[in-house]
């Protein structure tokens, strides 16, 4: 046995050379065989073979680890751990990166050519200038999320782009730092395609409609047909990213140009990764951060909120429409201060609509069973006020309304 239980190597008995005596071949070979076995059981420094048992560090450190890790099982140095925890758990800067929040409903949303629609919370789908309508809906997620965003193509569909935005207050922490964008993409078409990552910053604070400046437009990983592929790319936003950042996944023209062809997006993440090579594909990005859905829902409501569960069933029981009742009065009107559940990132644009007919800028007079026009005022980041007069003087006041609101460019518009 080359080593004892303490790992100490001792040469075999009878193999120690004695001065002036001939070394026997038996003793010599016993020694060589024993020491060969000992070397074989030792750890080669060039890593050509793996351990065959657990590596007990005996309360010593592994030092000088290379960062960043390259494989899921790699050990990581403290340097890397520190770089990953700088936001206290909220590392993923993309809201609804899990694609689990769909306040506008599950879809399908028909995005006509040369237009765009807000679909899942925080996600804008744009269709090419020419081609055909592309449909968007939620569907089963990949692994860590309940849903994913699904694009369904049709004959003639050209370029389709899926975009999200990061408000200035969050984007400021990304400026001049190497950041890694990552997502999982399912290719449900018959052919492989290569999506592109496009990143822009707003030219004015949280105003993307007023113009954006491109930072990068780079090809992502090749996505084979019929499987999920993780795509990831590292880039460095400039200081102007403090105005707000826009990140898009662009599907190549024609990739969805067959009826029934689909593509899905899930588990989208963007965060600073200081030790990653800039302007390059990333082989192993940090683990996707999935926040609890309750937290993500409130995060989304910072930009978009409505008084009902989704736009498709606003007359259903349990929808929290605003309800006012009272006695007849000289003015015969009623009003209510509506409080948002989540404070908005800015003063939002507001819609008030009839819970019966869905007519915009109307509320429902439940005595005469007609829609009447409300007056809206005092819109702020925490709520607004509306009132309306009954259709017939002297009746009981009984009004109902639904509302929605969005922060333009960040939650809708």
């Amino acid at each position, binding site marked *: 046995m080359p080593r004892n239980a303490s790992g100490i190597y001792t040469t075999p008995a009878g193999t120690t050379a004695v001065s002036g005596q001939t070394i026997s071949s038996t003793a010599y070979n016993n020694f060589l065989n024993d020491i060969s076995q000992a070397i074989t059981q030792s750890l080669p420094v060039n890593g050509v073979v793996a351990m065959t048992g657990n590596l007990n560090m005996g309360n010593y450190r592994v030092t000088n680890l290379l960062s960043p890790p390259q494989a899921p099982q790699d050990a990581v140095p403290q340097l890397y751990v520190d770089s990953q925890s700088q936001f206290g758990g909220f590392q993923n800067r993309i809201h609804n990166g899990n694609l689990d929040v769909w306040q506008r409903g599950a879809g399908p949303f028909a995005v006509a050519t040369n237009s765009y629609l807000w679909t899942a919370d925080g996600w804008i789908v744009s269709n090419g200038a020419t081609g055909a309508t592309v449909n968007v809906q939620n569907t089963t997620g990949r692994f860590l999320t309940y849903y994913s965003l699904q694009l369904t193509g049709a004959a003639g569909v050209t370029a389709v782009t899926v975009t999200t935005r990061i408000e200035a207050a969050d984007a400021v922490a990304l400026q001049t730092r190497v950041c890694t964008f990552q997502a999982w993409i399912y290719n449900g078409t018959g052919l492989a395609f290569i999506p592109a990552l496009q990143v822009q910053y707003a030219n004015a604070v949280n105003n993307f409609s007023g113009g954006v400046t491109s930072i990068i437009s780079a090809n992502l990983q090749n996505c084979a047909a019929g499987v999920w592929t993780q795509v990831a790319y590292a880039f460095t936003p400039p200081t102007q990213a403090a105005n707000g950042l826009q990140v898009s996944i662009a599907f190549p023209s024609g990739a969805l140009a067959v009826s029934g062809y689909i593509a899905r997006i899930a588990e989208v993440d963007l965060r600073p990764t200081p030790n990653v090579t800039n302007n390059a594909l990333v082989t192993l990005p940090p683990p996707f951060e999935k926040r609890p859905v309750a937290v993500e829902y409130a995060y989304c409501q910072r930009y978009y909120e409505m008084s009902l569960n989704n736009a498709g069933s606003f007359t259903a029981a349990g929808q929290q429409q605003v309800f006012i009742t009272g006695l007849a009065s000289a003015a015969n009107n009623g009003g209510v201060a509506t409080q948002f559940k989540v404070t908005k990132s800015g003063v939002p644009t507001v819609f008030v609509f009839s819970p019966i007919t869905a007519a915009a800028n109307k509320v429902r007079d439940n005595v005469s069973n007609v829609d009447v026009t409300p007056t*809206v005022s005092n819109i702020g980041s925490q709520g607004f006020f509306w009132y309306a007069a009954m259709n017939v003087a002297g009746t009981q006041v009984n009004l109902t309304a639904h509302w929605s609101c969005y922060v333009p460019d960040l939650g809708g518009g």
Partner: protein
Amino acid sequence: MYTQTGQPDNVLRDADGAIIPFAEGNVDYWQYQQWLAEGNTPAPAPPPPVPTPYTPPQEESPQS
């Protein structure tokens, strides 16, 4: 196109019925200002509706 609402702090966007607050930082307001800068003018606020006079139901006369 836009229509005044009779309120000093917002305007109605005709296309979708949105109430746009006069708030710096609201991009819809910024677009409204762009529209004004092009020489456009919002339509005046419609007059408030005049409620129909209430007519109480007539009591049935007791049968003799």
